[in-house]
């Protein structure tokens, strides 16, 4: 799973005024790390409009709908300490996903396990240390 999440894709001090801004930030990070091409960002926004990617515990998992524009399986973890209004839910952590295959599924399952444990979920929402997030997720 390590190659799917790189330390440089973990950003813990983000801010965004809206859900759209937050998703765009996730997309930009995926572009920066070479996982997706620019048009993927628009696909992420479109996907969000069709069904919310909020999963619970203050976490959303924005992603595009197709493999088009995806170079490799990768995720990014962005933390918005100020919170974002996500269609009525308060989101603090966004896990942006770029997927060509099933490489990210095990990591998502691991993320869900963490979030099912209230203490670990809280630790992730309050994380300020990239190494700690990496250790928790990989």
């Amino acid at each position, binding site marked *: 799973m390590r190659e799917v999440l790189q330390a440089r894709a973990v950003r813990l001090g983000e801010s965004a005024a809206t859900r759209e801004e937050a998703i765009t930030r996730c997309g930009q990070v995926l572009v920066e790390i070479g996982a997706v091409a620019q048009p993927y960002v628009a696909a992420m926004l479109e996907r969000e409009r*069709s069904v919310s990617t909020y999963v619970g515990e203050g976490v959303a998992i924005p992603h595009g709908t197709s493999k088009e524009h995806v170079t490799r399986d990768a995720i990014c973890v962005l933390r918005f300490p100020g919170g974002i209004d996500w269609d009525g839910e308060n989101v603090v952590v966004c896990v942006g996903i770029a*997927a060509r295959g099933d490489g990210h599924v095990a990591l998502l399952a691991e993320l*869900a396990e963490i*979030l099912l444990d209230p203490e670990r979920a809280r630790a992730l929402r309050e994380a300020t240390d990239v190494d700690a997030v990496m250790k928790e997720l990989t």
Partner: protein
Amino acid sequence: MVERTVAVASRTGLHARPAKLFVQEAQRLGVPVKVRVGSGKEVPATSMLGVLSLGAVRGTEVTLSAAGGPEGEAAVEALAALLARDLDASDG
């Protein structure tokens, strides 16, 4: 006790959008249904995080279970039918 095992048909497996549609349907049915993979832990079909934690990909065999009786059977039947469809291909 009623059980049904079905292979996940959605291209992207049972997460993201297919998981959301599955969980929404389970919530709508309002009958307690549990989901597991093989002999793994059971999670409520109404829990998005629970369903995500299964890590089911396309082709993974998922077992649904509910208390016996017409309501349980109907719920398991409906959710099994949903899993057997490619939910990435449908609208909504």
